[in-house]
C-alpha cells in the first residue's frame, strides 16, 4: 500500500491541476506579449519567467520598467507583490517541513499560487496522508502547471502583439483567483476573512508598493482566526 499510494496522490495532483492549465496558459501568454512589447529580448523574457515563476510580480516589474522607474523601485514593488508567498511557505511548512532539504528547495521554487492552493486544500482535506503522499501530490500539481507556464510565456513572446485586447485575456487572471476562492469559502470564518480582506484592500488602495495587499491579507487572517476561535468557544460552551 505504501508503494502505491504516493503514485495515487501524484496522479490526483496532476488531475486536480489540469483545470488550472486553462488559467496558467492565458496568463503566461499575456506575460510573454507584454514583455516583448516592453522591450525585453527573448532570452531576458524567458530568463525572467523561468527564474521568477510569479506572473503578477513579473507584470508589476514590466509595468514599472516601461515607466523607467529606478531599479530599486522596480525590485521593491515586484518583491512586495510576492511577499504573500511567505504565507504560502508558512502554510505548507507544517505539512511538507519534514521533507529533505533538497526537496524543500524544489518545492519552494515551484510554490506558486496554483500549486499552493491545490496542495493546501488537499492537505487540509486529507490530514492522514503520509509525507511521501503529500510530496507526490505537490509534484503532481507542478507537473502540468510549471511547464505550461514557461511554454505559454514563450508562445506569448513569439506572437508578440498579435493578440487583440478585446479577447479579454487579461481578465482570465482575476477569474482564476475567484475560481480558487469560491470553493475555499467553506465556513463563516472563511467568508469573514475574505470580506475583511476586501474592505481593507479598498480602504488602503492608495498605499504605495502594494502595501495594501499585505495589510489586507493580515487583516483577513486575523478576522478569520478570531471568528474560528469564537465559534469553537461557543460550541464548547454548555
Amino acid at each position: 500500500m505504501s508503494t502505491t499510494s504516493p503514485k495515487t496522490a501524484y496522479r490526483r495532483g496532476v488531475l486536480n491541476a489540469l483545470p488550472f492549465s486553462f488559467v496558467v496558459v492565458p496568463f503566461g501568454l499575456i506575460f510573454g506579449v507584454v514583455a516583448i512589447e516592453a522591450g525585453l529580448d527573448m532570452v531576458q523574457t524567458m530568463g525572467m519567467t523561468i527564474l521568477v515563476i510569479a506572473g503578477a510580480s513579473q507584470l508589476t516589474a514590466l509595468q514599472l520598467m516601461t515607466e523607467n522607474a529606478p531599479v530599486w523601485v522596480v525590485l521593491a514593488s515586484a518583491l512586495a507583490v510576492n511577499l504573500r508567498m511567505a504565507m504560502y511557505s508558512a502554510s505548507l511548512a507544517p505539512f511538507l517541513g519534514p521533507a529533505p532539504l533538497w526537496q524543500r528547495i524544489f518545492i519552494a521554487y515551484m510554490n506558486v499560487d496554483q500549486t499552493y492552493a491545490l496542495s493546501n486544500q488537499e492537505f487540509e482535506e486529507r490530514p492522514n496522508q503520509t509525507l511521501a503522499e503529500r510530496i507526490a501530490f505537490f509534484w503532481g500539481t507542478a507537473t502540468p502547471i510549471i511547464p505550461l507556464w514557461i511554454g505559454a510565456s514563450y508562445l506569448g513572446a513569439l506572437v508578440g502583439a498579435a493578440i487583440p485586447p478585446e479577447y479579454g485575456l487579461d481578465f482570465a487572471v482575476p477569474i482564476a483567483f475567484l475560481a480558487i476562492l469560491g470553493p475555499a469559502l467553506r465556513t463563516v470564518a472563511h467568508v469573514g476573512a475574505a470580506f475583511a480582506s476586501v474592505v481593507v484592500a479598498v480602504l488602503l488602495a492608495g498605499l504605495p508598493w502594494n502595501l495594501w495587499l499585505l495589510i489586507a491579507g493580515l487583516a483577513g487572517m486575523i478576522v478569520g482566526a478570531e471568528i474560528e476561535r469564537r465559534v469553537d468557544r461557543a460550541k464548547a460552551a454548555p
Partner: protein
Amino acid sequence: MNYSSGEIWLIIAVLGVGTFLIRFSFLGLIGDRPLAPWVLRHLRYTAVAILPAMVTPLILAPPPGDDSADPIRIAAAGAALAAGYLTKNAIWAMAAGMGTLLGLGWLVG
C-alpha cells in the same frame, strides 16, 4: 525602456533570488518543528485573506484602453465567485466567469 542589458539582468536575477527566498522562508527555516496552534489558526486563512485583496483592484480597474470600471467584468467576477461557492468546483467557476464575460460582451457588442 532605458535600461542597460546589465540593469535588466540585475532586475531579473534579484527578483528571481528574492522570490525564491520568500518561498523558501518557512519551508527552509522551520523544517519539521511544529507550529503553535494560534499560528496554524491564522495560517488556515491565508488563501481566503490574500486572494480577495489581490482580485478586488483587478476587477475594479478599467480594462486596457478604457477609463472606467466595466460592468460586464464585475458581472463575470460575480458569476465566477457564485459558481465556485455553490458548486465548490473551480472548473465551473471559471466556465461561469469566462462564459459571462464573453456572452455579455457579445450581447452588448
